[in-house]
């Protein structure tokens, strides 16, 4: 079948030009629908732009992004860059998209692919992010790997002491993120190994609650980090970071396996900031669900267990990728085609109604 058989308002608007957005756009346009992408930034890529290399095989993030972009351009998907949709309005069977008071366009179907935001590590003040220059987030460290940001310690330090804190803003009811971000563990291991291979003399510690190495080859990566790279894993979270000697940080933690407090001086402290909804909760609740916000993790909820992406109680509104909760890239890509299939079915049903 081709797109012309559908109702006039069968255009699909995809909000978000990250991996989820691009892949969903590809899947739909391959199915013969006219799709357009609204991306608030000036170019496509989302968080993938900021990554250096990807677990578990260390593929360069730029390569993957390059491939995706090429395909999107090849299919001539219309792009609305620099346009951030902050309000959706139900109009008949379809939707009107707004940026403030400015109408951005209309569409029969809207697919939310706005992904996730990284937890603002400043909310865990005790870890001193934003206070001490030697405290970074995982994303900052990727920027360092990409040479867009300098190392927080002097080039004279050949044997830096480096600490990674897992579950920062994940599994933390007080921060309103009760979920496990599920990528941080393996990311920490990946980054710890990267640091070790850049500074073989470095002492690298990972402070974890549980190591959740759910994916294929993640556990192997963990063992490699222990045996081949000598990364030390300490079960227990940091209590606080304070200024130490010179530029160093003085951090305290509990080694829960030994039941003893411990402290050490670090040249760099990396916080594994978890994944939180891209919209601020209030915005999302008001703009998308048209209701008053409740405090909680607030990822986009979908219909039942079987539905891949049709959003709860919202005709013609779908969600794809990490905006529904933490997801790895492979999961995002798989999800995209599943969502595309649902969108297609929805439009078919509209057509049937239209004929009847």
């Amino acid at each position, binding site marked *: 079948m081709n797109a012309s058989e559908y109702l006039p308002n069968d255009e699909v608007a995809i909000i978000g030009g990250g991996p989820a957005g691009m892949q969903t756009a590809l899947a739909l346009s391959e199915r013969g629908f006219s799709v357009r992408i609204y991306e608030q930034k000036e170019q496509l890529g989302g968080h993938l732009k900021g990554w250096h290399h990807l677990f578990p095989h260390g593929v360069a993030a730029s390569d993957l992004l390059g491939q995706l972009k090429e395909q999107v351009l090849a299919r001539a998907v219309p792009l609305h860059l620099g346009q951030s949709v902050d309000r959706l309005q139900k109009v008949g069977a379809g939707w009107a998209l707004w940026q403030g008071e400015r109408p951005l366009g209309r569409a029969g179907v809207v697919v939310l692919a706005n992904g996730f935001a990284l937890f603002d590590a400043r909310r865990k003040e005790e870890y001193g992010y934003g206070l001490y220059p030697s405290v970074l987030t995982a994303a900052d460290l990727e920027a360092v790997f990409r040479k867009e940001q300098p190392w927080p310690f002097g080039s004279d330090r050949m044997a830096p002491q480096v600490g990674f804190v897992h579950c920062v803003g994940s599994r933390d009811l007080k921060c309103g993120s009760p979920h496990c971000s599920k990528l941080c563990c393996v990311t920490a291991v990946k980054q710890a190994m990267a640091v070790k291979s850049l500074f073989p003399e470095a002492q690298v510690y990972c402070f974890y609650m549980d190591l959740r190495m759910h994916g294929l080859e993640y556990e192997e990566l963990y063992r490699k980090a222990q045996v081949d790279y000598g990364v030390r894993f300490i079960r227990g979270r940091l209590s606080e970071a304070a200024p130490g000697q010179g530029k160093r940080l*003085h951090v*305290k933690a509990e080694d829960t396996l030994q039941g003893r407090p411990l402290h050490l001086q670090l040249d760099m402290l990396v916080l594994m900031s978890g994944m939180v909804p891209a919209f601020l909760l209030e915005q999302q609740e008001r703009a998308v669900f048209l209701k008053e916000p409740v405090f909680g993790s607030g990822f986009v909820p979908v219909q039942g267990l079987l539905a891949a992406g049709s959003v709860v109680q919202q005709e013609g509104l779908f969600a794809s990728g990490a905006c529904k909760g933490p997801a790895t890239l492979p999961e995002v890509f798989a999800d995209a085609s599943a969502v595309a299939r649902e969108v297609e079915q929805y439009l078919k049903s509209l057509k049937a109604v239209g004929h009847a």
Partner: protein
Amino acid sequence: MTPLLWKDYQKEVPDNHYFFVRSCIRQTFFPGAEAALLDILRNSLGLDVFEDRRHTTCTGIAYHCDLVPLETIMTVIARQLSLMTEAGYRHLLVSCVTSFGIYLEMLDMWQHHPEMLEQTREALWKSTRRSFELPVALVHTSDLVYHLRKPIADRSPHRLVDKSTQRALRVVDHVGCHYAKIFPAGGFGGAEFPSVLSGLAETFGGEMVDYPERRHCCGFGFRHYLLQENRGYSLSNSRIKFESMEAFAPDLILTNCPGCNMFLDRWQYTLAEMSGKTYDREGKGIPVLSHEELAALMLGRDPWTLGLQMHQVQLEPLLDKIGIAYQARQKYSMLAGAASLPGEPSVLKVSFQ
């Protein structure tokens, strides 16, 4: 998160006219300190500071050890205030951090429980036929010294700098818990931003060190110290502080609380005896000064008149660094001759000329 505003951590300090109350511990262990303070305030800065020899202990230590009931201490505090009122002063200047905390506590209770204030007035009247007004300003001597740091610094011949190398001396401060933690708003910077001492040291050109256990208790803890069985706990707390500051090789520990001043000084000896360890490089210990002792030294007062020979950790190395002249022979001149020089510790290095 409500933004931090610096002014929330500031304190109004009147410029003049104070009624001064002493500290039991300070005048016992560091007798020169309060004399020096009064001398500075009155003679160097020409302030009006009045002292009534009839004032007594605030009984704070006994109160914190549950030996003195609340009603009693309230009445004692009321009596001090009545002396202030009688002398016609409304600004109370307190030398002791424990007392300072006690005054704050009582005023706070009276504010929230007027009936208690009434009971106290009644109790005081019945027992002494005295009455009192509440102070307009409650100021700790460190507050005042901090407030006057500029004029003092201007008059000072010395600076907190190593004379030979021109290196700024490293200062670690310890602000008394009862100054900073019970009623943080009652002092400068509270516990979050302790500035009352660091500000002073920096004015004198010293370099502040923000060491990890900066806010940890010195270990006094009243009953923990007073009962020998618990004394080890007090000592352990001090040890945590010393171990934390050791790495930064400080030249000086600066305190504003007489109790802390004593423990951070004396426990260095005790720890040295017990563990054979000192927390400086030379094995002489880290010198400890209180805010008024520091001010007096900077203003060029004579160390021995100031009573620095009463310190366990000797001050000579610091004096030499700063380049303060002193008569080594005069150090124990008020003692009955060389016969009764103090005994030598077995670990901590001391020198008697």
